């Protein structure tokens, strides 16, 4: 700690309200799709729905994605992600390990098994969080 660093800041804080019946099938492709609770009905099957208490900014590379008990570093963010998230509560999370977003709506994290979320779980984005890897480096 240098003492000049800003403390971690929660830029988006939401709570899962429902998990659609097709979400698990998308998890097999390393994809989690989020939409706001009030999104159109045809999107519900494929989506994790949620209701945001804090929606200040969209994510940037280096931010931390918090999903329930899981934390992951955001590696890349596509050009329309911020609008999607702030206007529609929409985000396409992809566990593909890519450091460049292939599609404009993509948010990439390391290749891993993404969690099948449940109602009540956190969906949060934190900026400026120090990571274990940096601390031990």
């Amino acid at each position, binding site marked *: 700690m240098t003492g000049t660093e800003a403390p971690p800041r929660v830029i988006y804080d939401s709570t899962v309200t429902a998990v659609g019946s097709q979400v698990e*099938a*998308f998890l097999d*492709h390393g*994809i989690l*799709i989020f*939409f706001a609770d*009030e*999104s*159109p*009905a*045809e*999107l519900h099957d*494929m*989506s994790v729905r949620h209701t945001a208490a804090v929606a200040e900014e969209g994510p940037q590379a280096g931010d931390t994605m918090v999903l329930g008990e899981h934390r992951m570093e955001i590696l890349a963010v*596509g*050009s*329309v*992600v911020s*609008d*999607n998230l*702030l*206007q*529609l509560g*929409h985000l*396409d999370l*992809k566990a593909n390990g890519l450091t460049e977003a*292939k*599609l*404009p*709506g*993509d948010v990439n994290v390391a290749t891993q098994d993404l969690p099948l979320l449940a109602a009540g779980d956190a969906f949060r984005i934190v900026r400026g969080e120090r990571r274990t890897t940096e601390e031990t480096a």
Partner: protein
Amino acid sequence: MPEYKSVKVKQGRGGWGGPLTITPTDAKPLIYSVTGGGIHPVAAKIAELTGGEAFDGFKSSAPFEKIAVAVIDCGGTARVGVYPMKKVLTVDIHATSPAGPLAQFITEELFVSGVKPDDVEPA
């Protein structure tokens, strides 16, 4: 009873698919905007030129069988597939190409992308 006209929607710069010809009917009157910030200008123009009814999918829900065209601002994964999968004509504002788990449903007969209001013309 309203009289409906047809429009042709072609792909914009960097876009994919189409052109689509869109003609609302009494059974399918809705120009369904599933976009951030209300009815998108592309949806508004399609509604104006065809006589269809502009409809904000994030304000209230509509049955699929009433949708003449879905206008989306999808970044490539979810909405690009949902509407073509149900055989609903789909116009994406963003210049996306078929991708994601639903890519198999996205065909040039059903989908056009990169569309701006200027890409919508009377047919």
